[in-house]
């Protein structure tokens, strides 16, 4: 009997040491909730996939939550259509007066969830910053009947308000004299496009998370731009505005749903150039005549004001997050060197690369 107890204890220890993924369903998203900096002490967090409830978590001590979600075939289908990424919606409420909706993406790999290279859900999600104050809304979310394990009932329903296409900043070119840059996007580059949320029927909008838009099934687009040409570069995305309704939902949202392609020039950003010997001197590098430099990046800068959609100009975009955006420069001067510089690091690490001294 004593030996049996020892074995049971050993198994208990083994289970306790095992990862959450081994102990049950893998955790999709976790963090903690606050309201104006104070930890939330009650309520719940729901995770939706196109309105279907696929996971939930109570709010624990310190406002902590961790939502386990089982991988399903339906999720697999969505992932296949989007370069592996699945776009989810987190709905959080304190059960009293605050609630929030936040969009995020996950990829299934190795028997668990990861965010891949998509933007992180803030570890501390402050409902007063990201959400709305409404007692009835918060109570409704907390009153949703939770399903049995394995069920994914629809708790929210999307009504399409409108569809539109909009050119959205995906990158930028920077050249000064004797330089040519080729910027390539698509095929090898995805985007994480900011999601708009409105809790007052579209009167005001705020940014709340991102959706991942895969581009691997489309051809690449590129911009070849000669000397002294520094502009934001834009490609076209499709956006849909939804009215999301249901027991725990009543909001409008604008989401990017597809990349259409196309390549146009955006606003002038040449004010960032000719500072490689001053502002960015520590990050500058020299290139001799007729040399070239190509860099791929999967962590491009996030562009604010990347598009205006349905009258909302707050769309953000970060390109190349899952794979790569490429920029290549050719230097055609007759003699002497030309310079590139990173904005925040050496050019091989920097989030942006500017040109010229």
């Amino acid at each position, binding site marked *: 009997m004593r*030996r*049996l107890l020892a*074995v*049971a204890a*050993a*198994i208990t*220890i*083994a*289970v306790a*040491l*095992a990862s959450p993924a081994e102990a049950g369903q893998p955790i999709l998203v976790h963090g903690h909730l606050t309201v104006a900096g104070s930890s939330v002490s009650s309520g719940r967090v729901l995770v939706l996939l196109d309105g279907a409830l696929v996971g939930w978590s109570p709010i624990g001590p310190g406002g902590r939550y961790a939502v386990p979600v089982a991988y399903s075939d339906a999720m697999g289908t969505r992932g296949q259509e989007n370069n592996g990424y699945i776009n989810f919606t987190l709905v959080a409420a304190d059960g009293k007066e605050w609630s929030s909706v936040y969009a995020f993406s996950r990829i299934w790999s190795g028997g668990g969830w990861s965010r891949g290279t998509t933007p992180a859900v803030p570890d501390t999600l402050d409902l007063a910053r990201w959400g709305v104050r409404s007692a009835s809304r918060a109570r409704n979310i907390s009153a949703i009947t939770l399903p049995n394990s394995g069920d994914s009932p629809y708790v929210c329903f999307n009504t399409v308000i409108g569809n539109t296409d909009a050119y959205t900043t995906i990158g930028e070119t920077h050249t000064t004299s004797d330089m040519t840059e*080729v910027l*390539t996007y698509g095929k090898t580059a995805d985007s994480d496009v900011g999601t708009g949320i409105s809790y007052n029927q579209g009167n005001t909008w705020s940014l709340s998370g991102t959706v991942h838009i895969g581009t691997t099934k489309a051809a*690449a687009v*590129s911009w*070849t731009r000669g000397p002294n040409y520094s502009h934001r570069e834009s490609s076209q995305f499709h956006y849909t505005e939804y009215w999301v309704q249901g027991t725990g939902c009543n909001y409008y949202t604008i989401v990017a749903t597809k990349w259409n392609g196309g390549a146009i020039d955006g606003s002038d950003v040449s004010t960032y150039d000719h500072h*490689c*010997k001053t502002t960015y*001197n*520590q*990050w*500058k*590098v*020299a*290139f*001799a005549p*007729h*040399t*070239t*430099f*190509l*860099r*791929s*990046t*999967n*962590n491009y800068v996030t562009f604010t004001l990347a598009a205006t959609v349905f009258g909302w100009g707050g769309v953000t975009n970060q390109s190349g997050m899952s794979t*790569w955006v*490429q920029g*290549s420069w*050719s230097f*055609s001067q007759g003699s*002497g*060197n030309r*310079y*590139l*510089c990173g904005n925040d690091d*050496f*050019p*091989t*690490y920097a989030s942006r690369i500017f040109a010229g*001294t």
Partner: protein
Amino acid sequence: MRRWIIAAGGVALVAVLAARVITSLDEHPGKGTLPFLGYPTLTGGPMDPGRPFTFGLVYVQNPKVPIVIQAVSLEQPTDGLRVIGAYVLVPAENPCGGIGLVRSFPPERDPTACPAGESYRLHPLRGWVVRPGGAAEILLGLVVTRPGVFSAKGVNLAYSVEGKRSTVEYPDAVTVCAPRTEFDSHCALLPGSSS
């Protein structure tokens, strides 16, 4: 039944302990010392055979623990492309900036980059210590020995941490065409580029 339970418990414990051991092995001093080596780059251009040039763009920065640089080499260089020397350039003490690709080795003073007349301040590579928070650019002196198109897939950096030697490969490729008179404006050096 009892033996089966004992066996199952034993297997579970071994599995868990093995996982813990593997985790601890992953945390040895050399592992992850330089967790991010920069984004992949490809640099190149026309050069003349026998004339040394400098290839920079390889940065050792902010290691988790002090590291001692031991050596650099090219990853899978084409026959005829050789390393003839290497220096360390410390960005913090160097107002001239860094080097992408220039046609001299050691790099000549650059009046545009160094208007006050300074030269690049270079340090011997072997034995150079980079501490947490510090940075060093590795300048490789390269030469091609004959006409042709040459390339290397990256740069290997050998370093040591507390006497233990490690090597990392930087994803910084180089392509060179020679001679300049033949390739000066059409050195097709960017495989993978869409240009």
